[in-house]
């Protein structure tokens, strides 16, 4: 084909109207759906918080620094993942695998710091149904949303490890890396909302 096909022809069958593979389209659709799960959890959180003006705000500078560190790890792992995808696209499998390993390390660091944080909170008496700071729903929401996110991070790590191994043995293609990357970036993206809405808005100030 010589000229750019008209818009109408994109939709006339025989090809992908969005010029994306099934795999990528499928992953994007999944991401859209999964985003709504988080959106609904967030809206539930907002709803309950509106009903409780006395919502606790217990996070001190130490906690915020810790959460910022977690953000740093996750953001950096997203960046290395983006590089891994670029390398895989260029056909440089070993560099791609290296960057995926870096990504996994970033994800693991995130999980470790997060787990330490959870342990610290639990030691202070926080649980799903009560906490020392006031409205019990505070920790209910906190553990539910961050727990859901942690589960996503953990499953993302599994996916990354599987794809990296396969890539190393040339059982996976750049497309697979890209799609795994999409999921990983999405997990990162969700955290971009958790960090301000859950942590920063519950900061102990003044």
């Amino acid at each position: 084909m010589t000229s750019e096909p008209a818009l109408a022809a994109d939709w006339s069958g025989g090809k992908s109207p969005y010029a994306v593979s099934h795999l990528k389209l499928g992953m994007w659709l999944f991401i859209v759906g999964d985003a709504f799960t988080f959106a609904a959890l967030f809206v539930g959180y907002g709803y309950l918080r509106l009903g409780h003006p006395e919502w606790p705000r217990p996070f001190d500078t130490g906690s915020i620094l810790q959460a910022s560190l977690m953000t740093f790890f996750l953001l950096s792992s997203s960046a290395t993942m983006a590089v891994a995808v670029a390398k895989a696209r260029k056909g440089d499998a070993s560099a791609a695998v290296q960057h995926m390993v870096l990504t996994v390390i970033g994800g693991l660091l995130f999980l470790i710091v997060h787990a330490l944080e959870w342990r610290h909170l639990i030691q202070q008496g926080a649980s799903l149904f009560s906490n020392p700071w006031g409205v019990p729903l505070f920790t209910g929401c906190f553990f539910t949303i961050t727990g859901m996110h942690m589960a996503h991070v953990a499953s993302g790590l599994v996916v990354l490890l599987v794809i990296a191994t396969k890539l190393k043995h040339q059982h996976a293609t750049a497309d697979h890396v890209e799609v795994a990357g999409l999921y990983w970036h999405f997990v990162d993206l969700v955290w971009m909302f958790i960090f301000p809405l859950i942590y920063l808005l519950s900061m102990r100030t003044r």
Partner: protein
Amino acid sequence: MSETHAEHEAPRSFIRRYIFSMDHKVIGIQYLLAMLLLAVVGLALTVVMRWHLGIRTVLRPETYLSLMTMHASLMFVVVTVTPTSAFGNYFLPLQVGARDMAFPFLNMLSFWVALAAGLVLLSSLIVGAPISGWTAYPPLSAVGGVAGPGLGLGQTLWLVAVALLCVSSMMGALNFIATTLNLRTRGMSMMRLPVSVWGWLTAAVTGLLVFPVLSAGGIMLLLDRLGKTSFFVPSGLYLGGEVLPHQGGSPLLWQHLFWFFGHPEVYIVIVPSMCMVTHIMANFARRPIFGYRYLVLSLFGFVTLGGVVWGHHMFVSGMSPYSGLAFSILTLFVSIPAAIFAISWLMTLWGARIQFRPPMLYCLGFVSLFISGGVGGLFNAQSSLDIYLHDTYWVVGHLHLLFAMAAIFSVFAAIHFWFPKMFGRMMNDTLGTIHFWFTLVGAYIIFLTMHYMGFLGHPRRYAEISQFDFLKPAASAHTLISVVALITAGAQILFLFNFFWSLFAGRKAATNPWNSTSLEWTLPNPVPFSNFERDIPVVHRWAYDFELPGGAQDYEMQTAPGPSMDGQTGKGVPTEKST
């Protein structure tokens, strides 16, 4: 066109071929049979319930409520899954001209997860089913066994089933969307898709948008039950002799999340039903569909409006009256896309030489039920009226006319219409016609009477009414409903017999017994493993070129070249030469 999927050989072993199959056709049939089974169980439960309500009191009140919950939940799964997952699975790839779904493995998984959902649901019947109804309103559903029978393990299993259904539906939705967008054959532009494909696509899109919200609500409800959080439980509930530990939650939040899913859910059911009916009806009216473009537009209308009207289920919930006003007005807008469909049906039928074969009869029944039920919807939609009607049998009548009867009629139509392609044999016309009349008349008597009982003020979900003076007049209505319900339920045996008998002894079907136009009818019976034996055909027209002047036949297959009535041919659509 690269075809990484479906390039695989037909599997040889029985298990890979018919049990853990990745072939969309086998999966479609698996869905159909599994849902038939659930439907039979759900129907059997109503027989018991109607016996109890109208003939003799045989159940304890809590047992009645358990049965009611199970009936509704089972049927909910049946109507959600059947139109799209059974027929869509089998016929969407055929109608768009693909060798399989985009993700065959996911497709298989989605069936097995759906089956697991059905079985878990059934198992809650064994351990004691919840009494909280298909909407599982908290606090009853959120605080565990203290709240009543079946609200312990039974309710937990119920929630697990819902979660599984969410997962399965998500996988299905992904697959349907990717297939419809990416795998259409050349010439099959969006505006040439059979309407049925549009219906499946719309259902998938809607499902993708709202099932996640239900899963979020489900997770929160599970945590309330298992983790003692209080998302949906207010402070100070006193149950079973003690104050519950929960604090500070809001039952209203569940209602919001549930109905945010729940209203679009009725479109997930009815939109593919409407579209299948539209498709089948054109065939037996031998008429081009009236206003195809407007139908597609109104599908967009259904999806968007569907997302902003959920509050009409909550007019008496204590929701802000201002939201109530907004939801009321928005809901009335729904009648616009609905009316567009109704007008299209009537115009397609207008002056047509209708062939009254069973698939067409069910379609006509569908149209009738849809319009009657829709009129009831207009009453519900006005908050001032609904405050009286809500929580009465009126709503039961409304939802059954649409959610239950109309949806099931479309399934009957689809089964009769596509049976020849699925199983290579014809179903019996006489049995189909008798079954149709029994079911249609029965449905109307039962559910119109329920509307009347609603006007009397008869509340929903009452196991027993003899204590209430104001409900005395309803007693005879109950008896009438029960008698008719038993007859109608009995008439379903005609259908089951017809189905299974035709499976083995029906007349052998020709390739295209209905003189139909879409791609599946170009394929031999049984449809080969990779659908299209050699090349996938190029499409030259929409699927509704009936009533052609002159010529030996009054229709053209989608694969036939030449001028068409779809208004698109020759405009930027590739023909064989262009590549």
